[in-house]
């Protein structure tokens, strides 16, 4: 297919449903008198005023920076720990309850404890993001590593592909479809936790702004912030898709190959 056409189609797929939903929202809210659900038009006008300004640098940039660091941290910790736990049954059994314990603790309850150990600066916020986003990566990595095909595993062992080489050439690629699923989950969770972390001890940030708007009853502004969060998620997921296509090229090729699609 010619690339222009393909791009057009992709774009069509990506935009159809959002356009329908936005239209519905627009119509439904057009003469809303509900204070908390202002007309979409108002929200969009506000959007321009609020975000195409100094705030972009002052609030969005710091947020995205913390998000990037936190997300990277979550992936590194999640995959690292996941490989360790996935490969070692005893270790997994010892640590599982403790990890599950931490996993069930709500970040807002965890934050005060974090403040005690990490202060109230950016470090604590990054840790909050990591502490929440690490789980999908970790769990998926553990399961992916556990599920490595036994014939492949035997092959590697008999050819002496052990240690780091085993990790690099067998374990990580084999688990990669599941790891990527976890990473995708973690991406949106990171954004959510970015907002939650900015509810405490913050002076700037996207989440901080949304919460402040909410508290000061600037409802269209708050909605515009939520829109921006959604857009951020969408853009990041596009980037993620590029990454996924590259890193799982073999996998998608394999899945497609016998469907007669190529």
């Amino acid at each position, binding site marked *: 297919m010619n690339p222009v056409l393909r791009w057009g189609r992709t774009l069509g797929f990506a935009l159809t*449903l959002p356009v329908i939903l936005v239209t519905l929202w627009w119509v439904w809210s057009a003469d809303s008198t509900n204070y908390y659900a202002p007309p979409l038009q108002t929200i969009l006008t506000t959007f321009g005023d609020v975000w195409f300004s100094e705030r972009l640098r002052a609030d969005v940039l710091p947020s995205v920076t913390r998000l990037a660091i936190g997300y990277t941290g979550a992936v590194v910790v999640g995959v690292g720990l996941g490989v360790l736990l996935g490969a070692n049954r005893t270790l997994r059994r010892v640590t599982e309850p403790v990890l599950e314990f931490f996993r069930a603790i709500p970040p807002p309850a965890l934050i005060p404890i974090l403040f005690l150990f990490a202060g109230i600066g950016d470090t604590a916020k990054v840790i909050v993001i990591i502490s929440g986003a690490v789980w999908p990566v970790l769990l998926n990595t553990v399961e992916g590593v556990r599920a490595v095909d*036994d014939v492949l595993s035997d092959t590697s062992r008999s050819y002496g592909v052990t240690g780091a080489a085993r990790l690099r050439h067998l374990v990580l690629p084999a688990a990669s479809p599941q790891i990527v699923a976890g990473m995708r989950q973690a991406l949106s969770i990171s954004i959510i936790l970015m907002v939650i972390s900015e509810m405490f001890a913050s002076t700037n940030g996207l989440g901080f702004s949304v919460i402040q708007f909410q508290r000061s009853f600037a409802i269209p502004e708050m909605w515009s912030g939520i829109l921006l969060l959604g857009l951020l998620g969408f853009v990041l997921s596009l980037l993620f898709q590029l990454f996924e296509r590259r890193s799982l090229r073999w996998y998608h090729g394999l899945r497609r190959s016998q469907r007669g699609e190529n």
Partner: protein
Amino acid sequence: MSTTEVRPAHAGAEPVRRRRPELPSAVLGLGGLVVFAALLELLPRTGIVSADYFPPFSEMVRALVEAAGTDRFWAATAETVQAWGIGLGIALVAGIGLGLLIGSVELLRRFTASTIEFLRPVPSVALIPLAVLLLGLGLQSTLLLVVYASFWQILIQVVYGVQDVDPVARETARSYHLGRWARVRYLIWPTALPYVMTGVRLGAAVALILAVTAGLVGIGTGLGAEIALAQSSNAVPLVYGLVIFTGLLGVVVNLVARALERRTLAWHSSVRADVGG
């Protein structure tokens, strides 16, 4: 050729899967928890953190035990568990149902992808005013938050799982004319099950978190509200006691999920390897 060139084993090679007598998971897991508890006890006792803000583990437990003597505590627990259970139930049914649908219909997946990616990162907490406005305070709003947060986690896992169907297995199903329903039941579902189980475990914890958080931020009742109350009263050991209790709920939830997994995934290589043989 000399035989000495054939060395017995690769350096660093793993040993053959040996039937070593192994401690049961329960003992190992409990061991992990005990070590963790000891750490919590030692941190304030050795003065690394001030006991004013981070009381020793024993005090947390004492406060928790004290609270556990009251009906109020159990009522709160029941409320949280109820919100959790109902919310997770809804999220599971919706997430798995839609996941199977979206995952197996390529067109649907393409049409919904952008919207899903847009909605997923919207934090539940930002939806609080909307939730209160639409559904009022109490269980319904709490449920909205719980469902909204855990639904996406389950959905994404299912969608990825569905795409993991082995091409040869898929062709087998096609050539034997398995209908749509049979294909879902006998091919897609079992393939996606490992992903789904991970989704269930992720979703269960997130649902619990939101069930508690709703109380913490004041739109629901239950353990979260109790924690918030204890916080605003400076009952520090009780705060931690309640947090510990929440964590333990999570451990129990995971135990249940694991048991479920062992039953449903006995055929899967990950569980096979664990059972040994």
